[in-house]
């Protein structure tokens, strides 16, 4: 609850700060506030067994704390990376308050115990992101992406509400516990229930960008400003997939068998589609956009497995992916901003000679995403595969491994360009101290979380 108040308060502060000429204070206050939030998470950690719910709408358990910590840390990095992007704009205050409101929504998504809160969380998270996507007002691509995202997101929200109505019609409650009780006590399910569940499943699949509901992802990711894309591919994705997991874990796991095949197929399709299309792209931003679709597929496997270990693996995967994502998108942003916002593959030629720190961190991030040991991404995939194999989904693991091999192919395309390309007529980069620190720090995190996976996994000791 304190986390919620902190985030809202920060959002309000940065909204009104400009009125009182506190412009200079916004960034430090946000950083301090997010650090404080991490502290709050630390203090609340371990209260899993308490049955305390907040107004029977939220429960701050270890699941929620763990994901909130990952989200907050990612948000902290994101603010550090985006500071220069927003500071030269007059609307910094608006931008930051929008992002903080989005984070409030993300927090709701990790701790809800009621479908109402889930819906509100999704909306509070999405609305600011629609706006941020269109934040380059003079750029047609940005406008188009924003509008497209808004249209399809509203459509998904409508589907979500439609499904919720069906669920309510079957169970008479929005409360996840009541729904779970309904499932365990009712001998015969209402036909409304399954339909409602599938509609909600579709809506959540849209939010995490899983096939066949992924179509918005590449277009929106490419159209949005790179900084916003970083936000979407790390924080929005983590929050959405955590909400997906939590919803199904807390309420629907009783009839797992009914929808397991659907999620199986969805995960397989998402992994294959995302990775295979990414292989043919020649624009790095688009490669990362499609690869994020592929990663959503890997995350879906945990929702299929649906046990405590799967929850831990999901946490680890999102943490690893967020770290790599922040690093990769920061480099992408830096390269793009020196190249009129364009990021074709050949803009990365010989990056290692032009700025070794950028090239090194980018390489780490890409290797981690590709799942090369001993980086974080390797263990992330490994844990998910272990949990899947233990539950007998061997076929899916085979598909997952094959598609991650395709992933290795296109990630190495970028790495090869960076190391063996000829850097003719390309600019050299000078990093601001904050960006240099961020790159090195994130690179260290990628290595260290790989070496010590239980630091992250242990957050969710249930």
């Amino acid at each position: 609850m304190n986390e919620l108040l902190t985030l809202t308060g920060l959002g309000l502060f940065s909204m009104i700060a400009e009125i009182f000429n506190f412009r200079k204070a916004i960034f430090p206050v946000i950083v301090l506030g997010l650090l404080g939030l991490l502290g709050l998470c630390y203090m609340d950690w371990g209260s899993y067994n308490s049955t305390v719910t907040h107004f029977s709408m939220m429960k701050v358990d270890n699941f929620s704390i763990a994901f909130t910590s990952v989200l907050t840390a990612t948000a902290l990095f994101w603010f550090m990376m985006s500071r220069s992007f927003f500071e030269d704009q007059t609307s910094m205050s608006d931008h930051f308050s929008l992002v903080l409101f989005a984070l409030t929504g993300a927090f709701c998504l990790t701790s809800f115990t009621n479908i109402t809160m889930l819906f509100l969380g999704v909306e509070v998270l999405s609305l600011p992101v629609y706006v941020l996507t269109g934040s380059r007002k003079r750029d047609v691509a940005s406008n188009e992406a924003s509008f497209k995202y808004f249209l399809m997101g509203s459509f998904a929200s409508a589907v979500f509400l439609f499904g919720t109505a069906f669920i309510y019609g079957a169970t008479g409650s929005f409360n996840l516990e009541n729904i779970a009780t309904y499932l365990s006590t009712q001998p015969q399910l209402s036909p409304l229930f399954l339909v409602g569940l599938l509609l909600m499943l579709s809506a959540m699949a849209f939010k995490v960008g899983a096939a066949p509901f992924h179509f918005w992802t590449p277009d929106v990711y490419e159209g949005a400003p790179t900084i916003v894309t970083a936000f979407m591919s790390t924080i929005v994705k983590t929050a959405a997939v955590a909400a997906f997991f939590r919803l199904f874990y807390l309420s629907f796991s009783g009839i797992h068998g009914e929808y397991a095949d659907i999620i199986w197929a969805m995960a397989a399709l998402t992994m294959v589609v995302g990775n295979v299309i990414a292989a043919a792209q020649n624009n790095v931003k688009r490669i990362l956009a499609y690869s994020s679709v592929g990663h959503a597929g890997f995350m879906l496997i945990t929702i299929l497995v649906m046990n405590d270990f799967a929850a831990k693996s999901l946490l680890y995967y999102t943490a690893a992916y967020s770290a790599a994502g922040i690093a990769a998108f920061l480099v992408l942003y830096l390269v793009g901003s020196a190249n009129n916002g364009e990021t074709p593959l050949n803009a990365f030629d010989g990056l290692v000679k032009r700025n070794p720190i950028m090239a090194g961190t980018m390489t780490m991030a890409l290797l981690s995403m590709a799942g090369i040991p001993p980086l974080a991404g390797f263990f992330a995939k490994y844990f998910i595969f272990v949990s899947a194999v233990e539950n007998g989904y061997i076929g899916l693991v085979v598909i997952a491994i094959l598609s991650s091999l395709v992933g290795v192919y296109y990630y190495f395309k970028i790495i090869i360009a960076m190391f063996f390309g000829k850097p003719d007529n390309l600019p050299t980069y000078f990093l601001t101290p904050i960006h240099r620190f961020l790159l090195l720090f994130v690179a260290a995190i990628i290595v260290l979380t790989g070496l010590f996976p239980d630091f992250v996994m242990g957050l969710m000791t249930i």
Partner: protein
Amino acid sequence: MISQYLFYFLSFVSVMSALMVVFSKNPVYSVLFLILTFFSIAGHYFLLNAQFLGMVHIIVYAGAIMVLFLYVIMMLNLNKEDEPGTTTMSKIAATISGGILMLVLVAATRSVHGMESPVADSSQIGSIENLGKVLFAENGFLLPFEISSILFLASMVGAVFLSKKEIR
């Protein structure tokens, strides 16, 4: 019995007017049909013993929001010619896919007919008193109520941000 007839009538009106919202070529007509849709949905609320919600629905949506819509449309001066053409192909595809989804949903839920509702019916369910209790009670919807204020705040900031002129 009369309420059943009323239900069918209102449903017919709301579906038809909703379709007209989409099919009208003139945006002003669309908005007017939308207002009609809202009225018929308000009628549904009354039928379900939710008098307060029905009234609020009319006041807020039909009264305030739609007037704003009309105002904006007039300001933008949208004409028939400005409407970007949609291909026949996409219309057909939309109809077919929507039809299929409806068919599947109806088929999947047809056996629900005659089943008991999990929520007890009461004539007082939509009264202001009950609504207030549900909204503001300790274990009611107090938190979502507050969170939705954040949602509105965020959308306001967003709207202002998008429409604000960039000053350098």
